[in-house]
């Protein structure tokens, strides 16, 4: 009897730990992914969707404009909705994102905002997540640096 009682305490303890683990696992407000996956997804622009690909999706997408203050910024594309970047993780918006079965495509007038939002949502576990590629590649260097071979460091005091 005594032994069963102490074994019972042990099982109770294990059940408590298991419940705590389950509660923490299903907590939606936690980052659970490996950042390496986000880095892999951005390589070769594989998380980008061009306008042509967008048209090919035939309206089976959720296009989100991240303009702040509840206003669209930059181009307002047909079939897009506005979610301000500050309110991205509000319950209503999370529900919209969770319920979407199609590709989720982010865009805004500021490439930095879109990039940050993409990483945050990717690390929260959203799978079909893309960025609408702007017309010109934002990471192309548009200048050419000409080395000045006549530069002599010893003549200038820096």
């Amino acid at each position, binding site marked *: 009897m005594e032994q069963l009682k102490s074994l019972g305490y042990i099982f109770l303890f294990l059940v408590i*730990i298991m419940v*705590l*683990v389950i509660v*923490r696992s299903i907590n939606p407000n936690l980052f659970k992914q490996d950042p390496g996956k986000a880095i892999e997804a951005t390589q070769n622009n594989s998380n980008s969707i061009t306008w042509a690909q967008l048209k090919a999706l035939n309206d089976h997408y959720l296009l989100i404009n991240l303009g702040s203050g509840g206003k669209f910024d930059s181009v307002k594309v047909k079939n897009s909705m506005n979610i301000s970047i500050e309110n991205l993780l509000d319950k209503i918006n999370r529900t919209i994102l969770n319920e979407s079965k199609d590709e989720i495509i982010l865009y805004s007038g500021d490439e930095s905002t879109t990039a940050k939002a993409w990483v945050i949502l990717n690390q929260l576990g959203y799978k079909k997540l893309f960025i609408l590629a702007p017309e010109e590649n934002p990471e192309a260097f548009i200048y050419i640096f000409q080395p000045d071979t006549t530069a002599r460091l010893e003549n200038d005091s820096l």
Partner: protein
Amino acid sequence: MGPLSILSQFPEWINLLIALFIGVGFGFALEQAGFSSSRRLAGMFYGYDTTVLKVFFTAAIVALVGSQLLSFFGLLNLKLVFVNSYYMNATIIGGVIMGAGFIMGGYCPGTGISALSIGKIDAMIFLLGGLVGAFLFAETYSSIQMIFLGNYKGEMRIDEWMGVSPGVFTFILIVAAVLLFWLAELSEKRFSRPDITSEI
């Protein structure tokens, strides 16, 4: 208090005070487990007393399970926990020397200090020998540096090397531990030496 993420803002003196208490606790635990007795420690190698295995393996597993659970609940930042660099040559040679010393002297450094604290003279000589060894190492470092630094594997962790998650590795280790404890029991029955007591 180290990498516990909820207690990261303590001033230095509180950290040192906590370290002192932990040290006191550790010494107390060693002494009450009977590790000041060289006969008990040597018994691990002859098979008649496997307390060392059980105590240290249990401590390792409690630490492992505790740190995994705390890390899962976000209370411990495992990235801040120090992982030893693995120099294969140095580890093997050092292990052999230490093992020989352990069975000959009947102490290892930690238990040697614990025995010293209760006034045992052989522990005193043992620790003196240890200090001489450390001194010789430092003096001859330039000649043995190449061997010492050879075969560097970085900060290896077994679970990464095996390719399993830390949780799975913990489970494997726990199963191994339970098996070893059971084997230890058998060994104690098989190799028992009732004439050797751990009275001193």
